[in-house]
């Protein structure tokens, strides 16, 4: 299939792998930031094909995983309100809050809709003026323009029964925070290709210089990931630390300007709590005061929420690349996709779920 097969061709993969082997002389630790990349790496078995000297660690780029528990509890409380039609992407429904998940709300009579496009939520609001339609907008910079667009569209149409429960986080502050950890081991980064498609890579140039790490905006197909690793390895071996674009068919240095304009119109940068990691200054987006009418957090004040995390879960360390899912004592035992203890086991893009789903270690092969 065009635009897919050429990025999954086995002989090209072998060629890039040979190149990586030819270039690597020392051990290197490389983090793929985005959960989509983690998923592709494990699904295609890329980690098994790399030379032993290269260790991939999995980053925090799973929006479902890092959505703070407090916000999930708010979502659950809002979704349970009788006047609310709550629209969400399917992934979020299974993420455990302090007590239960959104599926439980649905089964006890809550009006929950799984949607695939943010504008579907606006359509539902338009067609059901008697309902309060709330869209649970979760994501990184990638989804912020589309989610921001819902607010602009609702404002334009005067849909005052529409609001957004927003949980947007930003990648560069997270990479800075991880690189500033005293026990950081990561020496090079595959930056998230779709975030960079929207935002460009200028923000990453300062990080590469400041922390002396190569950063390569990388796509999501096996060839993309292998080429991204090759680019990072070459830089590491040569002692360079630049931003170098692997995902050339999608990413430009300046990014997508109209998309950035939507983000800047609707949102402003704010401090944000990351589930499993904690608060990171200026690492999130919040809806501007001007659009307060469309902000579900302001519209439905939910108080007295005291989130509780399971103590055994190490998803925070997994999200920071400090531990692998397999190092968790609960992995595959107390914690499975059927009974997840933390968000990294729930989301498709979570590292624990990807390991559980694909990694042959579970059958004793590795």
């Amino acid at each position, binding site marked *: 299939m065009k635009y*897919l097969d050429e990025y999954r061709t086995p002989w090209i993969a072998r060629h890039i792998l040979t190149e990586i082997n030819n270039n690597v002389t020392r051990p290197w630790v490389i983090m793929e930031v985005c959960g989509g990349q983690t998923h592709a790496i494990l699904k*295609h078995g890329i980690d098994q094909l790399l030379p032993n000297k290269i260790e991939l660690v999995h980053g925090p780029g799973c929006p479902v995983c890092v959505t703070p528990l407090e916000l999930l509890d708010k979502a659950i409380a809002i979704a349970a309100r009788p006047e609310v039609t709550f629209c969400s992407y399917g992934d979020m429904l299974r993420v455990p809050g302090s007590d239960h998940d959104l599926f439980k709300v649905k089964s006890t009579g809550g009006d929950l809709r799984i949607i695939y496009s943010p504008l579907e939520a606006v359509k539902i609001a338009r067609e059901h003026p008697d309902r309060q339609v709330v869209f649970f907008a979760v994501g990184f910079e990638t989804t912020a323009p589309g989610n921001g667009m819902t607010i602009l569209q609702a404002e334009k149409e005067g849909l005052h029964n529409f609001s957004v429960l927003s949980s947007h986080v930003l990648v560069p502050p997270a990479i800075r925070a991880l690189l500033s950890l005293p026990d950081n081991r990561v020496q090079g980064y595959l930056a998230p290709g779709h975030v960079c498609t929207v935002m460009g890579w200028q923000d990453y140039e300062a990080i590469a210089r400041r922390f002396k790490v190569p950063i390569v905006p990388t796509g999501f197909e096996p060839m993309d990931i292998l080429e991204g690793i090759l680019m990072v390895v070459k830089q590491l071996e040569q002692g360079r630390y630049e931003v170098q674009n692997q995902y050339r068919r999608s990413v430009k240095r300046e990014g997508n300007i109209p998309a950035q304009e939507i983000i800047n119109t609707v949102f402003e940068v704010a401090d944000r709590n990351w589930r499993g990691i904690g608060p990171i200054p200026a690492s999130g987006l919040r809806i501007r005061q001007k659009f307060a009418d469309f902000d579900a957090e302001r519209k439905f004040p939910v108080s007295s929420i005291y989130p509780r995390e399971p103590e055994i879960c190490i998803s925070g360390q997994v999200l920071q690349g400090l531990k692998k899912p397999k190092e968790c004592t609960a992995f595959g035992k107390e914690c499975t996709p059927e009974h997840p203890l933390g968000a990294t086991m729930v989301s498709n893009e979570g590292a624990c779920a990807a390991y559980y789903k694909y990694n042959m270690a579970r059958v004793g092969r590795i």
Partner: protein
Amino acid sequence: MNVDINKYSCPLPVMDHDTVQLAHGSGGKLSADLIANFFLPRFGNPLLDRLDDQAVLALPPGRLAFTTDSFVVDPIFFPGGDIGDLAINGTVNDISMCGARPLYLSVAFIIEEGLPFADLHRILLAMEAAADKAGVAVVTGDTKVVNKGSCDKVFINTSGIGLLPDNIQISSTNLQSGDRIILSGSIADHGMAIMTSREGLSFQTRIRSDTAALNSLVDCMLQASTEIHAMRDPTRGGAAASLNEWAKSSQIGIVIDEETIPVHPQVRGACEILGIDPLNVANEGKLLAAVPADSAQSVLEAMQKHPYGKEAVIIGEVVADHKGMVAMNTSLGAARIVDMPLGEQLPRIC
């Protein structure tokens, strides 16, 4: 006061409706009309025409296969089929997967009041055609009509029985190390046809459901070899669920090769866009078979000569390793687990 008596009349119940009314399920006159005008013309046969509360069947001696399934698919009409032919084919296939020859079906409708008769008629025509094609007779049935909102348009239950020849031993507990896994054709067509015909998806495809009765394909396979160890039509949960169930039931491991699994380009494209693994998506006209290595080729060739098995292919084999689990060699040359899908990819696909 002058009274024009001709202006008054005794109110008669309205008998002509465009849509199904609660009274059509009441067991009274309207129920009888519904049966006479809609059901009997489609399914009529000497056993059904008696309109007794049960069908009395004269069956030859031997083993019977008996199964039941309920169909609640949304939307009720989708590219390639509708809830009607799905309800016939689904039960025919469930009977066929043990090697039995399906003979008789029951059909029970739960109808939401307000269902247009035109829709009911269309569903019944599809059921008639599917039953004729599969060579099965509908010999008993039931209809209930429920209040608006108590069900969604129409739900259908079908049960069926079939005759199982003495020399056939097909079961999900029978897989043995060395068996070849045969897939009858491309996967994920039905699930993605439903998915892409749902409202709210902003892209359009020409993906059609693969709904089909597989009993004639099974006949061809059994003529090639009676040694088939297991058969399964991978409906909900897709091929991944069926293979995992086999691995657990027979306590064996299964290894499949990613490159051999046929997925039509449109289906693959839709799966990619929606982030769905085709292995987890429902099929309604495909089967998986586990066949001993020495008869795998003859079964495969027999399948490839049948219209529903043209794309049949060996996708893997049964191994003694990693009991209870399914692994897949990826096209890049690595290996990964194929896990049991966690929940429904989509609600109400069949």
